[in-house]
């Protein structure tokens, strides 16, 4: 069961059938110069929504087929005295094709509806950024804003974006959204690495203090510091010294190397649980912001999903805290 953007609740099979029918509408009308296929597809979707308003939810394939039968085959809708452009044989000519596309782009850019103009502008600015390499950082934000405006304009007009307009609008938006998505995933990874590095640094310093602040034999200076020693080097030189981290790692099974990996994974689990709680609860509270920031990936994102993830992670973080307390207690650190 799916809910379309226009609000029609259809079964999966009906949704697929409607999407195919709307694709057929766009394909049939694509060659007609004086109609807007995307707008007509949006009108058809609205029509179907009205027709199925009284049907049981989700509306099934048979209900939809009856509506589509009344609408008729799109091939029969061509306006009088104006047919679709005649089909060209494959590879008949690249120049006429490019010339037609160029004219269409110029027309849309200067005289076309706002949503198409924004689509061409967004893609043009993005393309210039890609072609100029280092200047992508300059052009990308501009094309991103233009593309978002184009998407918003189409939405305001009730237009469901067709494939052609998606190709124009989505590249800058998808690039920025992908970067933001990777950043969201990278935060706990980076935080885990930072926590592990800080713990190792503190352990190294404590080991050096407990060993009596020895001077490394490699350096001839009157100012000893922990930085003069490599971590493994100090440990090998003073195997009798036991730090708090040594006691904590002693709780984990395996040899010292395995213990460090397990401890790092344990820290990572805690950081991910905490981050998942924050992201989940924020996403649950502001689902509209998630849909807006990560266009076009989470168009059907719902706050309830994020809340479930947030609560599950909160539960996981609570369990993690329990284990962490027990480990620290067993190690005699707490």
């Amino acid at each position: 069961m799916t809910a379309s953007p226009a609000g029609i609740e259809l079964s999966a099979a009906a949704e697929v059938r409607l999407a195919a029918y709307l694709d057929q509408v766009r394909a049939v009308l694509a060659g007609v110069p004086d109609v807007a296929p995307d707008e007509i597809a949006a009108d058809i979707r609205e029509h179907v929504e009205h027709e199925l308003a009284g049907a049981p939810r989700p509306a099934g394939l048979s209900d939809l087929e009856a509506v589509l039968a009344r609408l008729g085959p799109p091939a029969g809708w061509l306006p009088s005295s104006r047919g679709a452009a005649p089909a060209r044989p494959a590879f008949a000519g690249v120049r006429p094709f490019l010339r037609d596309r160029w004219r269409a782009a110029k027309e849309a850019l200067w005289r076309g509806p706002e949503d198409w103009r924004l689509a061409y502008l967004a893609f043009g600015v993005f393309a210039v950024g890609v072609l100029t390499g280092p200047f992508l950082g300059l052009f990308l934000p501009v094309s991103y804003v233009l593309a978002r405006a184009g998407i918003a304009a189409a939405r305001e007009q009730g237009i469901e974006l067709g494939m052609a307009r998606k190709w124009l609008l989505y590249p800058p938006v998808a690039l920025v959204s992908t970067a933001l998505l990777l950043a969201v995933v990278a935060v706990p990874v980076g935080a885990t690495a930072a926590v592990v590095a800080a713990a190792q640094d503190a352990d190294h310093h404590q080991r050096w203090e407990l060993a009596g602040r020895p001077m490394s034999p490699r350096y001839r200076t009157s100012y000893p510091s922990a930085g003069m020693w490599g971590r493994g080097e100090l440990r090998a030189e003073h195997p009798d010294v036991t730090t708090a981290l040594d006691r904590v790692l002693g709780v984990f099974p395996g040899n010292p190397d395995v213990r460090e990996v397990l401890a790092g994974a344990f820290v990572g689990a805690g950081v991910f649980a905490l981050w998942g709680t924050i992201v989940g609860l924020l996403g649950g509270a502001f689902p509209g912001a998630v849909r807006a920031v990560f266009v076009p990936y989470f168009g059907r994102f719902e706050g309830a999903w994020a809340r479930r993830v947030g609560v599950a992670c909160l539960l996981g973080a609570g369990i993690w805290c329990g284990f962490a307390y027990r480990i620290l207690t067993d190690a005699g650190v707490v």
Partner: protein
Amino acid sequence: MEEDFLANWTTQARKGLLELCVLAALRGGRRYGYDIVKRLSGVGGLVIGEGTIYPILSRFKKDGLVDAALAESPDGPARKYYQLTPRGRGLLGKMLASWAEVRAGVDHITATGDES
């Protein structure tokens, strides 16, 4: 053969009239697309496929004969309303006058036959 001719003739006759009727349906004020379709579908023999109306509306919009705007609906999602522009209203008047003239002529011919 005869059936094919009749079907073709009916289609040709209907196409021009359908455009007139779409504009005429908007004469009383703004209507949303579905409403126009249902209104015209009620006219026997005029609309074969209900979807036919939407490309006509799209073309009229592009030609500046109608305007379209989304408006909130008390029954659900926003609806797209169409209304005549002054240019569309003017053209409709001319089309109706032309149609009346043609219809009167056709009625006369078909009623009296070739008596002259």
